[in-house]
């Protein structure tokens, strides 16, 4: 019993470490990809004394800027912790914490791999907590992140921060609707009649063993992706921090480590969001559509499936960055129009279409 608990804690710590490292390196990827897109080089100077003097590998690592996240993190850690005089101190400190916790919590129900038990031949999903409400938990906890933005903007006592937080909360609420409705077809498919169902993402991945949902429901995938961009406050929907009209948006008044928390949670959101998207529409840790998984049974196969899942997530992160440095920002009214007048009706129509299609399909089969 105690051993089991310890193993769970170990797995949780490991996952947090992986996600935080990925968040740090996403920041680097953001800088590198943006500079490549703009014909620049990006960070290529940071060097550690011994590691960077290894022949061939050292200069390569330095050129790719792989030590940069370390330097950035240390900078945030050692900067003076400034508390502006005009803020509401309690909520000002609370906001970055509230933003980070939901972003980190949602990954509990994210299945990041699968393992075939060598004795029984059964498939064990690798997940921290395989709870029945799965996707609902992600939506419920993930949308708590908006409180961090709202409280941060309000506690800053700054009109730019306040405007940024009001905008972003309005935006997140409007896109959550379309997002939730767009995944219902996926859940319908994952829970066919006559089977014990659940909203867990494990079911969704099992249902994608041969055919990925992305092929079967491209509209749902597209809607979910657009809403994901809006949920994570990324360009072209980065209303919360539109630098050009709101200085820095909701985190204008934040500096040093508190700003670092906002920053990390933004990238954690992206990573977990990408993971959810991959699990819902791109087969999670399954190998390729129409192909059986080549992972061997036992722990090695589990590691392979996890690496494959991470590779998919990294591709998604690249897409996020790529889109950010391609598209200009929408105007605020355009964002609202798109959310309420276009995405919501389309997602409802999409849902109705798939409900009818599944019903007709069931009738035809029986």
């Amino acid at each position: 019993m105690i051993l089991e608990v310890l193993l769970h804690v170990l797995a949780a710590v490991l996952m947090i470490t992986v996600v935080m490292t990925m968040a740090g390196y996403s920041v680097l990827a953001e800088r590198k990809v943006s500079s490549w897109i703009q014909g620049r080089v990006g960070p290529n100077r940071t060097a550690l004394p011994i590691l960077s003097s290894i022949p061939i590998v050292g200069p390569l690592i330095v050129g790719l800027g792989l030590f940069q996240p370390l330097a950035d993190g240390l900078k945030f850690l050692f900067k003076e912790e400034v508390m502006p005089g005009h803020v509401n101190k309690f909520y000002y400190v609370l906001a970055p914490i509230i933003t980070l916790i939901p972003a980190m919590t949602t990954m509990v129900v994210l299945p990041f791999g699968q393992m075939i038990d060598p004795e029984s031949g059964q498939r064990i999903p690798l997940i921290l907590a395989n709870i029945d409400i799965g996707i609902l938990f992600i939506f419920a906890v993930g949308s708590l992140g908006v409180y961090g933005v709202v409280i941060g903007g309000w506690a800053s006592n700054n009109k730019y921060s306040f405007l940024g937080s009001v905008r972003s909360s309005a935006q997140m609420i409007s896109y959550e609707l379309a997002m939730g409705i767009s995944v219902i077809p996926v859940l319908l498919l994952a829970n066919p009649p006559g089977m014990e169902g659940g909203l867990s993402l494990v079911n969704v991945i099992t249902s994608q063993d041969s055919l990925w949902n992305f092929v079967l429901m491209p509209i749902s995938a597209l809607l979910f992706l657009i809403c994901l961009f809006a949920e994570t406050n990324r360009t072209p929907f980065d209303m919360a921090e539109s630098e050009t009209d709101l200085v820095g948006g909701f985190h204008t008044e934040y500096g040093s480590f508190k700003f670092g928390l906002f920053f990390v949670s933004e990238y954690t959101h992206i990573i977990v969001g990408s993971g959810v998207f991959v699990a819902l529409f791109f087969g999670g840790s399954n190998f390729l559509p129409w192909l059986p998984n080549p992972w061997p049974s036992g722990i090695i196969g589990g590691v392979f499936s996890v690496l494959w899942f991470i590779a998919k997530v990294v591709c998604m992160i690249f897409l996020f960055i790529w889109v950010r440095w391609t598209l200009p920002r929408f105007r605020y009214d355009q964002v609202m129009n798109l959310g309420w007048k276009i995405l919501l009706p389309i997602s409802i129509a999409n849902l109705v279409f798939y409900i009818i299609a599944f019903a007709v399909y069931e009738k035809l089969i029986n």
Partner: protein
Amino acid sequence: MAGKTRAIERTPLSLSEKTYLPQIVNGLKTTFSNILKPNVTLQYPEERPVISESYRGVPTLVRDPNGREKCVSCQLCEFVCPPKAIRITPGEISDSEEDRVHVEKGPKEFEINMLRCIYCGFCQEVCPEEAIWLQEDYSVSGYSREEFLNNKDRLYELGGTMPDNHYKWDKKKEAELNGHEGHH
């Protein structure tokens, strides 16, 4: 068509244009092709830009290929300098140069204040002896005001030797050897 203006008819957006999606895909293609292109960054302190020959950098004094100081201390540059960055103290040429001593003059001291200099190049333009040149050195830095005051030694060190098209002094000597009186 008469005139240069041309009216472009704006057609209403088609359905595919209204979804933005084809445009977004096109934009993504453009940015991705940029990733594959070579970078334009110059790794500055290690790599230096190519400087054209007509570049106006730091003003310097030059010698001709025979090692002769070209400046004759006429002070035209001092006069023309708009920010009054040049200060010349005229003097005699040292006795070691037997030919030229008491014939030409030379600067005893030549100072250019780089905090005043505006790199306009008037001094180079006005110099009748082609003795002052704005060369390719563009990066001037120092810790004190005194470091920005380039004296004569520093100016010759920066300038070095320039190729000469005239060899004025050689011509003079040749004329003297051929029996003509020099303009003493």
